[in-house]
């Protein structure tokens, strides 16, 4: 058994040292997923595994046998953008674009966590079953994805618009 990438069965590498990130980029030429720090600090390599966002740089590909991986290429393409991709364009959610695939995969996984009721560091009421889709929640939940161009405000606007958070700027901003 191999690993399923964007719906296609793919053979696992013979060498267990190969990270999921290197399998995607070097083995499958799916270069949308980016290698930033390669040590789990930046989030550029974020992909979805069975719907959950993970860091592909810290994942050994052999650990993901039988699992279903979705990369940015699996979310949308030039002819059919994912709603988040369209929103990133409209809100200037990037400058150089290097962190963007990771940001978008992360946001897709993030909103499922929020809807499922996974608490975050800023969730006031741990007992609450419904967590508000506020900007504070979105910011905290996206903190594992760094943008060195500093496009975070545009990124937040794009995510907030796509997922229906209150879109008005807070007074402090």
């Amino acid at each position, binding site marked *: 058994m191999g690993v399923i990438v964007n719906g296609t069965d793919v053979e696992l590498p013979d060498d267990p040292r190969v990270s999921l990130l290197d399998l995607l980029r070097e083995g499958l030429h799916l270069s949308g997923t980016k290698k930033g720090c390669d040590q789990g600090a930046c989030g550029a390599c974020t992909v979805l595994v069975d719907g959950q966002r993970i860091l592909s740089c810290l994942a*050994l590909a052999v650990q993901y046998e039988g699992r279903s991986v979705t990369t940015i290429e699996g979310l949308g393409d030039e002819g059919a953008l994912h709603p988040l991709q369209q929103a990133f364009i409209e809100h200037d959610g990037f400058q150089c674009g290097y962190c963007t695939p990771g940001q978008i995969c992360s946001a897709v996984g993030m909103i499922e966590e929020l809807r499922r009721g996974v608490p975050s560091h800023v969730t006031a009421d741990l007992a609450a079953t419904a967590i508000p889709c506020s900007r504070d929640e979105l910011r905290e939940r996206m903190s594992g994805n760094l943008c060195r161009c500093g496009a975070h405000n545009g990124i937040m606007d794009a995510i907030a618009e796509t997922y229906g958070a209150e879109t008005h700027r807070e007074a402090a901003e």
Partner: protein
Amino acid sequence: MTPFSYVRAADADAAVRHSGADAKYLGGGTNLVDLMRETIERPGTLVDVTGLSAGITETDGGGLLIGAAVRNTALAEHGLVRRRYPMLARAIVAGASPQIRNMATVAGNILQRTRCAYFYDRAGSRCNKRQPGRGCDAIDGFNRMHAILGASPSCVATHPSDMCVALAALDATVHVSSADGERRLPFADLHRLPGDAPDLDTVLLPGDLITAVELPPLALAERSTYRKVRDRSSYAFALVSVAAALSVENGTVTDVRLALGGVAHKPWRASKAEQALRGQPATEAAFRVAAAAELAAAEPLRDNTFKVELAQRTIVAVLGELAGVEVTGGGA
């Protein structure tokens, strides 16, 4: 990364059978893969134990049995954890990033290694934890993030986990399997102080496999929390953190659990402060006395003197929050 063979263990017995002197157990990989890439860890075999128990079940006594392979996110979102042990849910979501918490297992979190920069700097720094007997470049180096309690001339590293601070406060028990059978040990006794053997983070022996963590029933933990002080508001290791549970009746502290993170080689159970608090009035003055009692033994380094007061202020603030007592802050 040096070459290794990879084997997936179907259960704990198989995992222990596969473990040799040259093997390491692999959880989510969020720390171990990084250490292997830096060639700080060079196992000959990786035994993948993520297929082991990922269940969270209530024990007969009303506690919780948490499988070693439970992911950090799954533990933080579990209803019983949020209601009965809120400090644990809060500690987990204060750590790492959501992506890492989706990968990281409970046992892997417990066994993660220090993030001391000198431990990581294989090319340019001496480190007794990495190479016993070589010396420590942190003691006279940039040591703002390092230990103020329980350190030794060999090592001033801190344990990086947030989750473990809550487990230390909650009187957790660790279930361990080995070729010799199964045993249990108090979580507070699992991690070591560095002494003259800082290469050993825990008392576990080669081949020992953590299979579960058990939380006892603890009514006062329903009123508990975790506060983490760090250089930025998210995705950073603790300068100081406090896990606390507090029970107050008629203005008197009847029971308390208190542990500190970011200050020592192990999650630091603040027993002296707990002792100083029991039976005392739930007032800022009493909280300050207790915090000072715990930090009296602190031996700060050149760059982290600030942690001594920061730890005390954070203890006082957290106890004040739990007691519903307004605290003024200011000098401890």
